[in-house]
């Protein structure tokens, strides 16, 4: 009975939660970029915070994508989300080592 009620509540809320996951992902990306921009250039201590935040952002966005899409479209968007996360991490790594030709 309770499980059924919870399941119904979840069915009503899942659209809202999936949108919230995109917002959460945005905050984690922003936090990761701010951390690298403000403290890490030429001074990376290898704390791993940027990687943790970006991984969290990818997982959160992927959960949102998985909830809102299906089939081939889901697989494609999940792959794109993961690639975007990796690309951003690579960009931030280059920046930390001073290898980007511009200031972020």
């Amino acid at each position: 009975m309770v499980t059924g009620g919870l399941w119904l509540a979840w069915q009503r809320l899942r659209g809202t939660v999936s949108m919230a996951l995109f917002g959460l992902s945005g905050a984690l990306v922003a936090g990761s970029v701010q951390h690298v921009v403000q403290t890490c250039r030429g001074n990376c201590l290898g704390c791993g915070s940027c990687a943790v935040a970006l991984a969290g952002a990818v997982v959160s966005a992927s959960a949102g994508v998985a909830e809102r899409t299906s089939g081939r479209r889901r697989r494609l968007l999940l792959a794109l989300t993961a690639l975007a996360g990796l690309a951003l991490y690579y960009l931030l790594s280059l920046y930390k080592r001073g290898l980007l030709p511009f200031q972020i």
Partner: protein
Amino acid sequence: MPGAKSRRHLYIRFGSYLLGLMLFYVPASLFVRAFYGVQGQHLVGNLCDSLNLRMGVGGLLKIETWQKVFAADPRSLGIFAVIAVAFLFGPLFCGWVCAAGSLSEGLSRLVPDRFKIDIAGRVNAAAIRYGFLSGFMILPFIGLSAGCAFCNFRILNFMSLGITGGFVPALTSTYIVVIALWLVLGGMFMKGGRGWCNFLCPVGAIQNLFHGLGARLGFTYKLKYAPEKCRTCLNCVKVCPMRAAAPAAEGRWRTANGAGVLFNRHTCITCNDCVAACPHGALSYGVGKAAVPAPAPSPQPAGAALGAAAGRSEV
């Protein structure tokens, strides 16, 4: 075309935004100066003496923030004052004194409507903003923050300093991203001009969260809707800067004419533009019940489903 009542309301609101600029932003930042003045301290009015609400929200789950509150630091006290006001009276800070939101809203009025994106009833902005807020408050626990580099309050501080001849730092890419989202995409090219507020402002999100809780109580102030007076002219939907109003589905309300309107408590900033724009007196701001729903003719009102799907609480 807006009526005389609407225009007068708009002038009063923009006047209050100017007051907000003077109260919370350097070089004036009268609120913080006055608070420090009472404590016998002298301030010169630099950036850190302005009200850092965004930082306040980011640190709400941290013990240090609460220690600062007990030390009566006005920059930390500010966020608690704003939350208390939101609980009792609605997000008045957003609707009446936030100069950052008013700037993008004002810019939006310069662009014709046909060039603007309208998110009303299309995107669940409240859910995205609450998600952003939760990430924003979790970040400090992994040693990060999404505060200063992406802060539109800070950029507005720089702008007001620049206009008054103060020091303005070089634009970094994060500031360029913020300006593009806040003033261009979410401002000029979004209907209502409150795109940044709708999706990304953690200060607005925490106020709406507490407003959503407070509005359930009878003694708090809130937007009130009288369906029996509503003629579904949708003036309120047209003027709402937060796109918090949307036409209700048939059967949701027993109105004088048409299906009526639904308001999203989680994006409403109690600016009362809708109250001023309503020619039939169906909307008001005050204490009591938010609305008296008419008995639904069908067992599952379509409007209720719409409201739930869009993350709306009933008004």
